[in-house]
């Protein structure tokens, strides 16, 4: 049971937000929060069976009325992360560490995949699911590998459902994922600016701001986006606890998600999970703006191509052959 003092504090906090701090639309939202809290029977709190003024419900309410991530000050970001961590602790007893680390200056991430090396082992697919806390119930995967017969160079003619010993003779393998387009159709389509391109080139989704209209999914020519059709289920022991607000934190149901080049890893200098696990070294990742990076070596010395380049989406993901 929460003491009434706690409740009072929380509410005076909300009231303070409304009247004291910088006015603007944020405070209007918080005003609405206060009203909703006082008035409605907290339908937002949903299934939780405890008192409507429990800590959990107040946290949920504050979460509900927070703004778009791009409009948050650093304090707002820290506050929401604190709330998310606390909520995970209350609800599931999880100790999460959620980061909101911004892009590193003078970095533009790029990716290259060697189609003549890839053998279709799909270790990357599994590593991606494990690292990024992707729903196990629907078996969603953000990387898909296609088995293509020699003589073709087109995923559409390939087989994405293979499950047999690989590599098969006379076939090659082509992995696809979000290509982090510079001129991304999904960003243009989003009606609420819940998805955008960060300065380091990663296209991210604000999972709490997304309304789940799926227009971006229709707009993506690479099938790079996945929807959370239900509340994602991840066994607690398989959960990656080091998370990023824009990356692998557990998504609410009804929101869009996608490959973020493992933003939680790459912004701390580590390689994406798919690159780290790749047993054939087919995946090359690095900073496109550094002339001495490996990705630049690939672009300068190998014959590279990008998928559906005719669409003008300008992806930062290249395929190359030895």
């Amino acid at each position, binding site marked *: 049971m929460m003491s009434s003092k706690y409740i009072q504090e929380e509410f005076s906090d909300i009231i303070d937000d409304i009247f004291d701090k910088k006015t603007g639309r944020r405070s209007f939202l918080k005003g609405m929060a206060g009203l909703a809290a006082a008035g409605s029977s907290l339908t937002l709190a949903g299934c939780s069976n405890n008192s409507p003024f429990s800590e959990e419900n107040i946290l949920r309410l504050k979460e509900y009325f927070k703004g778009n991530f791009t409009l948050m000050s650093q304090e707002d970001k820290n506050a929401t992360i604190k709330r998310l961590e606390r909520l995970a602790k209350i609800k599931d007893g999880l100790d999460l560490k959620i980061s909101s680390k911004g892009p*590193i*200056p*003078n*970095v*533009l991430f*790029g990716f*290259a995949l*060697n189609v003549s*090396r890839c*053998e*279709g*082992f*799909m270790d990357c*697919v*599994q590593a991606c*699911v494990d690292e990024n806390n992707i729903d196990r119930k629907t*078996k969603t*995967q953000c990387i*898909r*590998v296609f088995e293509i017969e020699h003589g073709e160079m087109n995923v559409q003619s390939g087989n*994405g*459902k*293979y*499950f*047999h*010993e*690989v590599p098969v003779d006379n076939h090659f393998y082509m992995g696809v994922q979000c290509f982090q387009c*510079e*001129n991304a159709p999904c960003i*243009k389509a989003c009606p609420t600016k819940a998805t955008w391109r960060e300065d380091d080139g990663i296209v991210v989704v604000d999972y709490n701001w997304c309304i789940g209209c799926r227009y971006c999914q229709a707009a993506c020519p690479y099938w790079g986006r996945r929807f959370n059709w239900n509340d994602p289920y991840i066994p607690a022991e398989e959960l990656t606890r080091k998370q990023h607000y824009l990356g692998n934190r557990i998504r609410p149901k009804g929101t869009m998600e996608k490959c973020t080049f493992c933003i939680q890893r*790459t*912004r701390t*200098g*580590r*390689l994406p999970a798919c690159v*780290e696990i*790749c*047993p*054939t*070294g087919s995946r*090359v990742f*690095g*900073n*496109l*703006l*550094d*002339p*001495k*990076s*490996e990705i*630049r*070596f*690939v672009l300068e*010395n*190998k014959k590279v191509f990008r998928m559906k380049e005719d669409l003008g989406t*300008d*992806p*930062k993901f290249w395929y*190359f052959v*030895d």
Partner: protein
Amino acid sequence: MKTVSEFYKMAMVVMQVVFLFYGCQQGSHDNDVNSRIKNAKTVMESQPETGETTMVLSNTVIAQVKHKDVPFRVETRKDVMERFKCSECHIGKKVHVTKADKVAHGNIKKLHGNKERPLACNTCHMKDERDFLVTEKGVKIDFNHSYQLCGHCHFREKADWVGGAHGKRVSFWAGERVVQNCTECHDPHSPKLTKRWPKTYSLPLSE
């Protein structure tokens, strides 16, 4: 020509005003990835402070080659080899082993080189000093730098490996570059990767 391109740009501006869409900016190719890459000339001399890049550099050595004058490190080999040092047995005279299969190298299946002219042990292993490898021209090579030996024949792969198009970088894209040795992925005696089942499968989306 200049007036034509200027006219084109003017027309694009008019189009943008007419349609109010960002998309028309595509017309001017100043902002696409490839021109950004071309304009980026500054090398990241000091890698960014990324928090986790303090990595263990033990078990690595500085490679004997450089990429664009930048030295990099290679994972060592000797400490992970099963029976190093070789000179513990091979000391200049013939070694007699009764159970050669188990104690010696009977488990090694040699599938390297082409069928007509398969490689012999001594093609790579130095006969006189067993703790070293040797090239065809007789240059002695340390096991930690075995890529030098592989690169003798597979020079294209080696060039790619030095640049980063072949092989694997370890753990971090930033910070000091550490790459895996050839032998991390390829068994030197049978370098082709073996076939196996995929780690997972993608759902058949129609059932």
